[in-house]
């Protein structure tokens, strides 16, 4: 079993900051105070003044640099190699986007500075808005939500506001069983009851089931398209009609827009409201879990309900409009994760229309290539043409006692980040692989080799796979123990 991508090397150990700390060490220097010092007790009242922050670290500058540098080396990252997490669209993050997000006038813009001195920042937002509208085919968009789930919440609140305005907010949101967990969680926060609808035997939305489920209590359907199997919901237009006929709305989870940009537009296939994940489709870096951006795009009928403020053009200038009586209000202070918006716009400007479309085509090609190469070795429970990702099941390997989670861990030994494990739930033992367009054939082939090699290992020596990873500085981590008696912060060892 040739592991080609990695070999063993020394890796630095590092204690926690608190363990490195000792009194008096410092990594900062403040300017000399150019005004008289003020006695805290006098200014604030002694009762309001704290004693020292117990346990807070004290380290030198070189220790701080080394600390974070050493820790960083324990991470895998896109910059190290392919990161085929299905549904997460882990594509390359261009470095110029980091640079422009730090442009002085943008990075230091205060959200309350005069609009006359904010036109540049507002133009960035306006330019992104219009690009996203063109890409989605929708009529209006808010950039306020901070991530996908936040966009979902915003979108469902919009639906609710419209229906309420029509006299009845209704009670239920329909969600296919293949949906991401944020969808039902969102519906609940928006005050809706979730009703799951079972996917059909192809993993698609079951139109008949839908038709049966949609009644006067249904506010809308949340659908991911392409769905979490990576398959396009080919009857989406019919689904929209079913909903619309009953006064319900169609929400699209746009997490998988990387399969559609430049090819098909939700606004053209019946979607009323949708979110985009800027940190997926538009390549803003995931940063170990965030930040993101979750713009919500809507059709005209939902526009009056969008969060305040709305960007508008007045006499050739941009201004914020707070006078929006139907608005659902604010979902977040200020205007959104502006720094993320900058990066997303930079990505769009770099690609242009054609470039975006080419990216989509490459993403789909890459996923299909993987599918073709791995189909002989892994079970593919749903076989319709897939788009940007492909979902296998561990069925064949499970018979030998090896599960998707084990295969994932073994991939680590081969130098790859695992695929997404056990999602979507409609695939038993799911192995959800999304290569994205930014992987070249060299890297894809290495990944395919690794997967095939593991499949063979499982036949010859399942135990090696079940106990993987073997070559990392940290071997398999005991997650059960962590949850049993949670230790969520460092405390000094008792003496």
């Amino acid at each position: 079993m040739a592991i080609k991508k990695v070999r063993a090397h020394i890796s630095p150990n590092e204690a926690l900051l608190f363990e490195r700390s000792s009194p008096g060490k410092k990594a900062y220097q403040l300017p000399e105070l150019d005004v008289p010092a003020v006695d805290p007790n006098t200014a604030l009242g002694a009762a309001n003044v704290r004693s020292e922050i117990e346990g807070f670290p004290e380290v030198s500058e070189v220790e701080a640099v080394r600390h974070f540098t050493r820790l960083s080396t324990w991470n895998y990252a896109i910059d190290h190699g392919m990161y085929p997490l299905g549904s997460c669209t882990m594509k390359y993050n261009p470095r110029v986007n980091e640079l422009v997000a730090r442009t002085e006038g943008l990075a230091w813009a205060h959200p309350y500075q005069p609009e006359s001195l904010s036109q540049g920042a507002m133009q960035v937002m306006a330019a992104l808005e219009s690009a996203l509208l063109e890409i989605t085919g929708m009529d209006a968009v808010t950039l306020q939500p901070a991530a996908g789930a936040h966009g979902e919440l915003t979108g469902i609140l919009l639906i609710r506001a419209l229906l309420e305005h029509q006299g009845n907010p209704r009670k239920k949101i329909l969600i296919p069983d293949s949906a991401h967990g944020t969808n039902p969680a969102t519906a609940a926060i928006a005050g809706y009851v979730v009703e799951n609808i079972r996917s059909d035997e192809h993993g698609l939305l079951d139109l008949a089931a839908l038709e049966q489920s949609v009644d006067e209590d249904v506010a809308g359907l949340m659908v991911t398209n392409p769905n979490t199997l990576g398959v396009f919901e080919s009857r989406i237009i019919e689904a929209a009609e079913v909903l619309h006929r009953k006064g319900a709305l169609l929400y699209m989870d746009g997490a998988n827009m990387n399969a559609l940009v430049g090819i098909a537009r939700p606004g053209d296939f019946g979607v009323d409201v949708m979110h985009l994940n800027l940190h997926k489709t538009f390549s803003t870096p995931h940063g170990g879990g965030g930040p993101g951006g979750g713009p919500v795009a809507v059709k005209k009928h939902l526009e009056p309900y969008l969060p305040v403020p709305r960007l508008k053009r007045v006499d050739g200038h941009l201004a914020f409009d707070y006078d929006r009586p139907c608005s659902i209000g604010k979902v977040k202070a200020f205007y959104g994760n502006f720094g993320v918006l900058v990066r997303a716009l930079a990505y769009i400007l770099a690609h242009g229309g054609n470039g975006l479309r080419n990216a989509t085509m490459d993403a789909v090609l890459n996923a299909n290539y993987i599918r073709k190469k791995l189909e002989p070795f892994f079970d593919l429970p749903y076989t319709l043409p897939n788009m940007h990702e492909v979902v296998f099941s561990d069925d064949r390997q499970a018979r030998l006692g090896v599960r998707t989670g084990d295969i994932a861990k073994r991939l680590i030994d081969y130098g790859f980040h695992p695929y997404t494990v056990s999602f979507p739930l409609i695939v038993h033992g799911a192995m959800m692989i999304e290569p994205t367009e930014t992987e070249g054939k060299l890297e894809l082939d290495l990944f395919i080799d690794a997967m095939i090699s593991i499949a063979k290992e499982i036949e010859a020596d399942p135990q090696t796979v079940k106990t993987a990873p073997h070559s990392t500085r940290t071997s398999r981590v005991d997650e059960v123990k962590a949850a049993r008696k949670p230790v969520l912060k460092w405390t000094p060892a008792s003496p």
Partner: protein
Amino acid sequence: MLEACGVASSEELFAHLPEAVRLNRPLALAPGISEYEIVDYFRKRGDETANGYASFLGAGVYAHYRPVLVDTVVARGEFLTSYTPYQAEISQGTLTTIFEFQTMISQLTGMDLANASMYDGSTAVAEAALMAARFTSKGGLLVARTVHPEYREVLKTYAKNQGMPVTEFGYDPETGQADLNDLESKLNDLTAAVIMQSPNFFGVIEDVNRAAEIAHKRGALAIMGFTEAVSLGILRPPAADIVAGELQSFAISPSYGGPYAGIIATREKFARQMPGRLVGETTDTHGRRAFCLTLATREQHIRREKATSNICTNQALIALMATVFMSVYGKQGLRELAEQNLAKAHYLAGKLRPRFSGPFFNEFAVYADNPEQLNAALLEKKIIGGLPLGRFYPELSGAILLCATEMSKRAHMDRLAEAF
């Protein structure tokens, strides 16, 4: 690759899409541009902002110096381009920094535990309210008018559809502190939580402990918010049940409103109601210390509609900025930094007519006859003045909110004061 896929062109891979959904024209977007042009484009946008002005705006977003180490660390591809650390064996870097973050936030707030970050302070406060409602099985929310107006708006958006009525209570027009008598009078047995912020929107320090006592008497939880994290370097942590706030002050650039990082910290007994990610300590198969995401059964990907929140992507990299900031300043530095802020603000306030008498940290309201006119005059001097309070408080239309930090230069403060 096309051959391996059995197609003659990539187009064929889309052949199964219904004709009706297809976009049969190119996107109407300009052709792609070069890196050089991109840099140029954003530089021009940056020049069309308040670049080069001295500013005394605070109001939830503060201008603090960002130590260079912060960007040095977050620029490392290993932090920047990794995903949520689900695969613990190759994510110990991120997991360890989050564990340190949770620890430092707990230490700062005096709470038992903290989560790995929320979108921002405003959503953190809203999620804290939902958390309180779940724990108390009650719905009423009492929020002080001294809480950041935008935070209150977000709270209302979140609470509206959960059957959680939001009631506001007033403030003492003399001190600028929340009116705890008003609070007491509005509190009832259906109240899930009392929500305040300290320093409050006027910069005034609240009597949070008394407020908490009052809340507890009727079985409500006390949620304490903050927008100015640097104040935690000098202010006694509140005796609250939940602390929810914004870390923007910790080396996170103002960036026209985001991305920032919210936090929720709380007592052990509320841990299972906590929204968002948590990192816990454990061991690997060799018994070595290791960290991993934990208590995931609270979260949407496991618990779906019963989750404590729908949050998934959070603000990890921004929280890492705050982590580096806290490491750089450390115990002594954060205190010194807070003392400098205190000194600067009190110097400036000393030259002006404060609107309120309550104690303040680095932000305060002052009388101004015509705030808009004053600000316009200041712009001429390349100074951005303060926030006219009338924008959010009609009754305070003769007042302006000013903020001074360690970055405020004495000369600029003197020039500002002259304009009054």
